[in-house]
C-alpha cells in the first residue's frame, strides 16, 4: 500500500492555505495535491497515464470551468473512481446543493465555517476520519 494522500479541489488559495494550516495543526502530514479548477481535477483523476488515486478527494462546489457537482458526476460515472471517497467542502448550505451532492454519491458534506478554529477542527476531523479511521475501498483494476 502506497502512502495515503489527498486531492484537494479548491480554487481559493486562501482557503487552500487555511486548510493546509488546519491539517498541520492536527499533525496530519499526508501529501496533499491541489487542483485549482474542475478541469484540473478531472485530469488528475480520470486523465491519461493512470496516476495512482488519492485516498480522499476534498471537493469544493463553486469552481471555475467545471463545477464541483459535475466533477463528482463524472468521477462516479467512471469504474475506476466509482468508489473513491469524495467529501464536499463548501460555503453553501443550500438544500439544493446538499441534495444534489448526496444524490450524485458524495460520501460526506461539510460546510466551511467562517471561524478559523472551527474550520481547522472540521478539516482535522475530516482528515483523521478518512485517512486513519476509515477503511478505504480496495483499488479497482480496470
Amino acid at each position: 500500500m502506497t502512502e495515503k494522500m489527498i486531492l484537494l479541489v479548491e480554487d481559493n488559495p486562501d482557503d487552500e492555505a487555511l486548510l493546509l494550516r488546519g491539517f498541520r495543526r492536527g499533525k496530519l502530514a499526508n501529501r496533499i495535491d491541489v487542483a485549482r479548477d474542475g478541469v484540473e481535477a478531472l485530469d488528475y483523476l480520470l486523465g491519461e497515464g493512470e496516476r495512482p488515486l488519492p485516498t480522499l478527494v476534498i471537493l469544493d462546489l463553486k469552481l471555475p470551468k467545471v463545477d464541483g457537482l459535475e466533477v463528482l458526476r463524472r468521477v462516479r460515472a467512471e469504474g475506476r473512481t466509482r468508489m473513491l471517497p469524495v467529501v464536499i467542502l463548501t460555503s453553501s448550505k443550500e438544500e439544493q446543493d446538499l441534495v444534489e451532492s448526496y444524490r450524485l454519491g458524495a460520501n460526506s458534506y461539510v460546510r466551511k465555517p467562517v471561524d478559523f478554529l472551527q474550520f481547522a477542527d472540521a478539516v482535522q476531523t475530516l482528515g483523521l476520519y478518512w485517512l486513519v479511521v476509515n477503511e478505504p475501498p480496495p483499488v479497482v483494476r480496470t
Partner: protein
Amino acid sequence: MLSASSIDAGGDAPRVHPVLVSRYRTASAWIGAGVAALGAATLGGWAAGFEHGFLTSGALMKPNAAACFILLGVALLLARGRNRARAASLGLAAAAGALAVATLAEWLSGVDLGIDELLFQDDTLAYTTVPGRIAPNTTLAFAFYAAAILLQQREGRIARWWRALALCGLAIGAVGAAGHLYGVSRLYALAQATGMAMPAAAGLIVLGCGVLVARPEEGPSALLVDDGPGGTIARWLLPSVAVIPLILALPAQVGVRIGLLDQAYASALVTVGLTGVLAAIVVIGARAVEVRDAARRERERENLRLNEQLQRRAWELLVLNRELESFSYSVSHDLRSPLRSIDGFGQALIEDCASSLPPEGHEHVRRIRAATQRMGQLIDDLLQLSRVTRAELHRERVDLTAMARELVAELQRSNPGRVVTVEIGEDLVVNADPRLMRVVIENLLRNAWKFTSRHPSSRIVFGRCQHEGEPAFFVEDDGAGFDMAYAAKLFGAFQRLHGATEFPGTGVGLATVQRIVHRHGGAIWAEGAVELGARFTFTVPPEPEGEESAA
C-alpha cells in the same frame, strides 16, 4: 384585482337583476291589494243595491267571486311577510280554494250546497241560471290561483306546478276578457246564460300576473328579471305583445259595433296596425339588446387587456425575483470566503507572530475576528431570509406544541443557569409549512429567551388566543420589552431596538418571521412595554382553496 362580477359577465349562469326582483315582488303585493280592493268595491256595490243597474246589468261579479278576490288578494299581499303573515296568507288562500272547490262541486254534481247566496240574495240572474253562483270557468281559475299561492310557499317537485296553475288561471281570465271585448259570449260563458263578468275577467288577468311575479326569480317570470339580453327582450316584448293587440283591437271593435266599420275592414286595420307596431317594437328591442351587447363586448375586451397586463407584470416580477434571489445567493456565498480568510489569517497572525505582536496587537486581532464572525452570522441570517422567500410552501399539519417543547429543551440545555418558567399551550396545531414554522417558533422563542436574560427569573408563554374571531398564536415574555413607539421598526431587516452589547443579534430574525407569516397569508404584530415584556401575536389562516402552493 378585477372584480369577480365583471369576470362572471361572460359566464353562462343565469344572472338575476336584484333590483328588478324586488320591484316585481312589490308589484305583486300591490296587485294583491288591488284585486282585494276590487272585491271589496264589488261587495260594496251589492250592499248598495247596484247589482241591477250600475252601468249595465250584470256589470258586477257575484258576491262569492268578490270574496275570492279579497281572500286571494290579501293572501298575495301577505305572502311576502314572515311567520304569522305567511300563515295568514296560507289560511286565506286555503279558504278561497275551499270556496272554489265547493262551487265546482255544485256545478259538477248539480247539488245546491247553499253557499251561493250566503252573502247577498241574487235576483239578477245575470250570467247565471243559478242565483249567486260563480261561473264555472271563473271558479276553476280561483281554484288554480288558490293552489298556486299555496304551492308557492313550499319546495319540491310538486310545488313547481304553481307556475302551470297560475298560467292556466291567467289563460281562463284572458279568454273571458277577449269574449267580452269582441262580444263573443261563448268565450266567457261556458254553460247556457252562465258566464264570467267583465270585472271578474279583468281581475283574474291582473291576479294571474300578480301570482306569477310573486316569485320572480323562478318560473316563467324568471326571464323578466334576467340581467342578460334575454331579459331585455322579454321585458320589451312580453308587455307589448300582451297590451298592444288590445289597444288596437278595442277601437276597431267599437267601430264595428256602432256600424262605422265592417268586420273584415276592422280585421284588416288591426292586422296592419299590429304588424307595424310589433315590427317597431322588435326593432327597438333588438337595438336595446345590441347596445347592451356592445357594452358587454367592450367590457370583455377591457378585461382581457387588463388580464394580459397583469400577466405580463406577474411575469416581469417573477423574472426580477429570480434574478434577485440568484444574486443574493451568490453574493451571500462569495461574501463568506473573504471572511474566512480574514478570520483565519488573523488567527495565524497571533499563532505565528505572537512574540513580535504587542498586547494591543492581540486585542486588535481579537476585534477583527469578532467582527468577521458577526458578519458571518449576518450573512447566514440573510441567506435564511432569502431562502424563506424562495422556498415553496408545503403545507401539512404541524404540531407547534411539540416543536416549541423541543426548542425550549434545547435552550435550557445550552443555558442551564437560567431560571425561566416556560408555559406551552396544549394542542397548538396549524396547517403550515413545517420547516418554515420551525423558523418562526425558533426565532420567537429565542428572542423571548434572549430578552429575558437580564432578569433574574422570567416567564415565557406560548399559546393560542383569538383575534377578531380568528385563531391566533402568541409568544409572550416578561423581559426587556420595547417602546411601542418603535413597534413598526421591529420587523424591518437590520432594525434593532437594542445595542449589540446589550443583546446580541443581527436584526434579521423578525424580518424572516414576518416574511414566513406573510407567505402563509397571515399577519404578525407586537405589543410591549420597556422592562415589562413583549408579546408577539401571529395568525396562520387556512390555505385558500385553489391557491397554488408555489409563491
